[in-house]
């Protein structure tokens, strides 16, 4: 009678005494393979849970940050920080619950003024860590323990970045009277009248409201000098919607005494800008519009204020002091202009920039007509092609629109201003 080892060796073609070795190896291999598979599956589950936790954290923190819009931005001292925090925390818990995250799983909740998008006098950030619990389905068989799965998120409230660059044009707010600015807060200094339609006159040396600014030339004079291509550079910059080339305003908020060093912080008058050539450059600038109109408007092809901003409380006819949120679209009609006190009487004199204002271009106005697309008098060249009358220089025109934002020079350009449209973004 054969014993087990002899039988195995006979049946499997092996030698007597070696039966069972393969079986042991196979069992070991199977165990290892199963263990690896189990760990791979559990890790996959945990990674999925991690992504779900991130989604929940993002949603809850954004919801909490939205609640911060209810603060008083004009008079931050009037805010009640504890109630603001409580409201934001309630919103966090509400949206956590909507995403199936219990209040106990919302950890490290912090609602604070962290200046995460620039200096501010208000509470501007909501941070949380969402915790998900996932079992160790298979890993536990091998003694493994499920890890703590969590995901952090921080949502911040800040001022909208209103334009891709600074349009190389300045407005003077202590010059000839205009419907565009007034002393709104009684401090003796004029501010842009936000949300009020008005017109900026260009090209008239006697009554300029706006003019081009000298562009930083990085050592050469080619950026601004009309005789060496400065005018063309200015026009090119307008068409691009901002000073984003080698020629640009270098130092936005300079020390006035240092303007003579010409490090770009100074702005200079460049007479004769308001010509039909400038008109053409504005026409080309806004020829690329339509995204905001297409997404949020009446689809007439023209981006309008209500298609670019929305009141945070949804009011279709918001009052002037409403808090606005920037819609998710870009429009070349929204440009940043440099604000100066008063143009100097002579060209090439320092003109320190005091602030930046965001202006929505409604259209261009010549002597006898207004056109939303800044087309020329005969109505031709609407397509943005090369204009035929480029060499003519036949006088001024007016840029009509409204100011929607003012970033003052007392702080960084990202500071939350009381008028600024707001944005809420995830920073973590």
């Amino acid at each position, binding site marked *: 009678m054969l014993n087990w080892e002899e039988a195995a060796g006979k049946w499997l073609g092996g030698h007597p005494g070696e039966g069972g070795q393969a079986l042991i190896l196979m069992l070991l291999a199977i165990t290892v*393979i199963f263990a690896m*598979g189990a760990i791979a599956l559990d890790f996959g589950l945990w990674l999925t849970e991690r992504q779900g936790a991130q989604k929940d954290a993002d*949603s809850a923190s954004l919801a909490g940050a*939205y609640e911060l819009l209810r603060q008083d931005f004009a008079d931050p001292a009037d805010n009640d920080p504890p109630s603001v925090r409580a409201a934001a925390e309630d919103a966090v818990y509400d949206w956590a619950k*909507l995403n199936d995250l219990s209040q106990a799983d919302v950890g490290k909740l912090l609602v604070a003024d962290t200046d995460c998008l620039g200096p501010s006098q208000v509470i501007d950030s909501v941070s949380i860590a969402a915790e998900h619990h996932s079992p160790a389905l298979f890993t536990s068989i091998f003694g493994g323990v499920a890890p703590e799965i969590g995901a952090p998120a921080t949502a911040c409230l800040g001022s909208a970045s209103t334009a891709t660059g600074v349009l190389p044009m300045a407005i003077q707010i202590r010059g000839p009277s205009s419907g565009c600015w007034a002393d709104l807060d009684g401090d003796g200094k004029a501010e842009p009248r936000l949300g009020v339609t008005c017109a900026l006159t260009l090209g008239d040396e006697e009554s300029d409201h706006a003019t081009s600014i000298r562009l930083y030339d990085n050592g050469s004079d080619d950026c601004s000098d009309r005789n060496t291509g400065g005018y063309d550079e200015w026009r090119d910059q307008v068409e691009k919607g901002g000073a984003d080339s080698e020629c640009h305003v270098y130092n936005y908020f300079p020390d006035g005494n240092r303007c003579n060093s010409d490090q770009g912080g100074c702005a200079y008058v460049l007479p004769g800008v308001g010509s039909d050539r400038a008109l053409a450059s504005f026409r080309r600038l806004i020829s690329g519009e339509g995204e905001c109109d297409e*997404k*949020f408007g009446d689809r007439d092809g023209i981006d309008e204020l209500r298609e670019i901003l929305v009141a945070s409380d*949804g009011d*279709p006819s918001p009052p002037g002091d409403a808090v606005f949120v920037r819609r998710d679209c870009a429009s070349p009609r929204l440009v940043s202009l440099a604000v100066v006190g008063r143009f100097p009487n002579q060209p090439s004199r320092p003109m320190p920039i005091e602030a930046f204002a965001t202006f929505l271009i409604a259209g261009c106005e010549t002597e006898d007509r207004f056109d939303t697309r800044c087309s020329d008098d005969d109505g031709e060249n609407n397509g943005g092609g090369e204009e035929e009358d480029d060499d003519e220089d036949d006088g001024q025109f007016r840029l009509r629109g409204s100011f929607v934002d003012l970033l003052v020079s007392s702080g960084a350009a990202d500071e939350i201003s009381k008028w600024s449209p707001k944005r809420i973004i995830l920073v973590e």
Partner: protein
Amino acid sequence: MALVLPIIFVFILLLVDFGTALDRREVLQHAVREGARRGAVTTNISEIVNTTVAQSQGLLEADDVTVCYTDMNGNGRRGDPGDDVKVGVNYTYRFSVGGGELLSAWGVTVPEIEMDPWADMRLENSVSGAPKC
């Protein structure tokens, strides 16, 4: 050996199927998250659906995506800023990479995994004609 190898082979193929299913679930979660965020800042429901579908790596079609709104501020209107937008998807993963086909060859019903991830976000825009959840 001849008995064990097919079992290991099927096990590995099922592992591949499970892995693929987990990957699908991650993709879908990402898609609904992106769709919901788009929903928070847009007024156009079809844009939300398109974003979700575009982020799903071809797993979803427009009919698989549902978008609805909940009145959170209690004013009786859905779709106001501050209300809730919910984006959900329905997707059925059927084991197929190898394990599923082997199982069906042996007469075993091929397993399916129903996936219906969703995401809720707070509206930053007003939406007209917002469907109720």
